[in-house]
C-alpha cells in the first residue's frame, strides 16, 4: 500500500532527473559546438592572406568589374576577421609574414545583364558572375578550391553583383574550417554547408544572394600526391 502511494512520486522524480540530464546534455552539446568554432577562429587568426588581382581569363569582363571585385573582396575579407592581415597583391610586407595564404580568383563565367531590363521585366536581365577561388599556400599547395557565384537579379546596378560575389567568397572562406592546431600544418578542410534547394530559394528571395558551390575539386590531393598533409573534405 505504501509502495503504491510512492510510485507516482518515484516516476515524477525519475522524470525530473531525466529531463535535467537531457537538458544538461543538450547544453553541453551546445557549448561543445561553440568551442571548436572559437578554436578554429583562433587558429585562423594566425594566418594572413594576400589577395591577387582578378584574372578575367578569356572573358571580356569590364575592367570596372575586375577592380570592383578586387576591392570588395579585400573589404569583405577584412570584415570576416578570419585573417590576421589581409594584404594586397604586390605588398612588400608580405615577405615578412610567415603564415601567408594567397587568394587567386579566376572568372569562369560572366553573363552581362541590364538594369533597365530588370526594372522593366523583373525576371530577366540578371547580371551573373561565377568565379573560381583558390586559396593556396606560399609553396603553391591549394587548400581551398571553390566555385562561387554572385548575381544581381532584381534591384541595384550591375556592379552590385561584384559586391555580392565578394561577400559570397568571404562567406565560403569563413565557413570553411581549419584543421590542425599548428599553422604550418594547418589546412582548410573546406567543410561548407551545401545549401539545400529550399535554403537557396529562401536566400534568393530575401536578399538575392546565392551561394552555389557547384564543384569541389580535390586538386590538393591530386597535385601533391598521397603523402600530402593537406586534404580537403566535402
Amino acid at each position, binding site marked *: 500500500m505504501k509502495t503504491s502511494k510512492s510510485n507516482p512520486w518515484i516516476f515524477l522524480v525519475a522524470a525530473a532527473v531525466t529531463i535535467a540530464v537531457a537538458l544538461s546534455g543538450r547544453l553541453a552539446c551546445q557549448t561543445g559546438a561553440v568551442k571548436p568554432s572559437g578554436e578554429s577562429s583562433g587558429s585562423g587568426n594566425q594566418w594572413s592572406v594576400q589577395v591577387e*588581382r582578378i584574372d578575367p*581569363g*578569356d*572573358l*571580356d569582363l*569590364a*575592367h*570596372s568589374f*575586375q*577592380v*570592383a571585385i*578586387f*576591392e*570588395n573582396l579585400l573589404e569583405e575579407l577584412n570584415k570576416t576577421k578570419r585573417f590576421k592581415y589581409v*594584404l*594586397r*597583391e*604586390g*605588398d*612588400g*610586407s608580405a615577405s615578412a609574414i610567415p603564415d601567408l595564404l594567397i587568394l587567386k580568383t*579566376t*572568372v*569562369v*563565367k*560572366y*553573363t*552581362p545583364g*541590364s*538594369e*533597365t531590363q530588370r*526594372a*522593366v*521585366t523583373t525576371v530577366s536581365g540578371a547580371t551573373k558572375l561565377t568565379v*573560381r577561388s583558390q586559396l593556396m599556400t606560399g609553396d603553391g599547395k591549394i587548400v581551398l578550391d571553390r566555385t562561387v557565384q554572385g548575381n544581381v537579379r532584381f*534591384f541595384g*546596378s*550591375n*556592379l552590385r553583383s561584384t559586391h555580392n560575389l565578394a561577400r559570397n567568397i568571404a562567406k565560403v572562406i569563413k565557413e570553411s574550417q581549419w584543421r590542425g592546431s599548428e599553422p604550418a600544418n594547418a589546412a582548410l578542410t573546406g567543410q561548407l554547408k551545401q545549401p539545400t534547394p529550399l535554403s537557396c530559394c529562401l536566400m534568393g528571395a530575401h536578399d538575392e544572394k546565392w551561394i552555389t558551390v557547384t564543384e569541389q575539386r580535390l586538386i590538393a590531393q591530386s597535385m601533391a600526391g598521397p603523402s600530402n598533409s593537406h586534404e580537403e573534405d566535402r
Partner: protein
Amino acid sequence: MHRLFVVRKDKSGCFGRHVLSLWAVLCCFGIGASAQSTSPAVNPNAPFSTQATHLLGFPNTKNNCKGILSIQNNELRFQQSGEPVAEVDIASIRHVLLGEESMQVGGVPMKIGKAAAPFGSGRVVSLFAHAKYDTLALEYVDSNGGVHGALFQLKKGQAELVRNQVVARGVYSGSGEGQATKQSTSEVEREDK
C-alpha cells in the same frame, strides 16, 4: 551636226565641273569633320576638374558619393563638399581604364514612384529613365607596392578627358587602348579544364 556635237561636249564639261566642285566641297567637309574628331592637345600643366561619383577604392573617401575629380600638381584629387581632399600621386597610377554603364536614374524616390504607379505603369517609366555613364577605373600602388583599384562614374565623354589628362602626365592607358569596354548582351563563358 558638228555644232550639236560641240554643244554636247560643252554640256559634259559643265557636268564634270559640277562634279569636281561637289567633290571639293565634300572633301572640305570631310577634313573639317576629321579635324573636329581629333582630340585637342592636352596641356599637362593645366589644372583640370570635372564632376564625378566615387564608386569605390579611393583612399579616405566614402563609396557612392559625388564630388569634384581634379588634377593639380601631379596629384589626382577627389573633393567631396565639406570633406577633406583625398588624393593620389599620378606617378603611382599604373593603369587608367575606361568603361561604359547604363543605369537607372532618379535614385530611391524614382524607385518608390515607379513602385507606387498603378497597373505596373512604373515599368514603362523605367524604359526611359535610364542614362549612360562612363566609368573610370584606376589602378595605383601604395608606398608598400600594394595594388589598389579605384572606380569613378562620370558623365558621358568625361572619362576620356580625365584619361587624356592622366596619360599626358605619363600614365599607361591600359590594355584597352582607350576604348571603352561595352557590355554585350550575349553570354560569355570560359570552361576550365
